[in-house]
């Protein structure tokens, strides 16, 4: 692979990783928030 193709590849991976981190990070935070709220709702 030439230098340009390597850079393209790295930038593409960066964009995909950013997407996964934000999406799954938010989902994980939401799940934890839900679990802590569940405890509060228990009598």
């Amino acid at each position, binding site marked *: 692979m030439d230098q340009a*193709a390597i850079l393209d590849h790295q930038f593409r991976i960066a964009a995909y990783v950013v997407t996964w981190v*934000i999406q799954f990070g938010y989902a994980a935070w939401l799940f934890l928030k*839900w679990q802590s709220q569940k405890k509060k709702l228990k009598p």
Partner: protein
Amino acid sequence: MKKLAIGAYLLITVALLGWAYYQAIYVAPNDALQGEIYRIFFYHVSIAMDSSVFFIVSLAGSIGYLTYRHNRPEWAQIADAWAVSGAEVAVVYCTIVLTTGPIWGRRAWGIWWTWDARLTTTLVLWLIYVSYLLLRRFAAGPQMQTLAAVLGIFGALDVPIVYMSNRWWRTQHPAPVFGGGPDSGIKDPQMLAAWGWNLLAWLAWGLLILALRYHVEREHQRIVAAEAEAALNA
């Protein structure tokens, strides 16, 4: 039965995300001009289009809250829960759009950012909804819900402006992928399929987290109501 349905939906969504990734990376061919870097569009464009669904949910919830706040308080609370859930998921999606776009721009244009109409209106939209979430975070009570609903409705006015921005004005941002005239659209069937699968997969994922966020908000409302009642009875 409900748990089984949720589990099945989660499994289908994860499988869809995997399939969409496979389509975007291994099936769609490289672009003749942009090479591999164009594959960012499979996430960037799909997630941008999906985000509009969550902005619409938030708008509908805000309108619903203002409509029912006096005569049907329980309906108003449900509408408010949809409003905040839609806004939060929309901000998550918009954040991804505003980070993957500059990553592509740095490689394609040589710059991370430019103040063109599409980028600027999207940033303004993001800022409006972040301020909506901050308002909800740092204030409480029915007055906050009313203010948030009004802000949510005004914020949603920016959504069609974002959509039309690269149709109304000449922008550095690429021309619309769809609905932008005779030259718009994805010509390669494999690229079109990869885009379609990603649109569907991220929509399915978004609806899943929207439902979870709504459930969390409804529980939060119950906790707040119980605390208020306990304080009154004390």
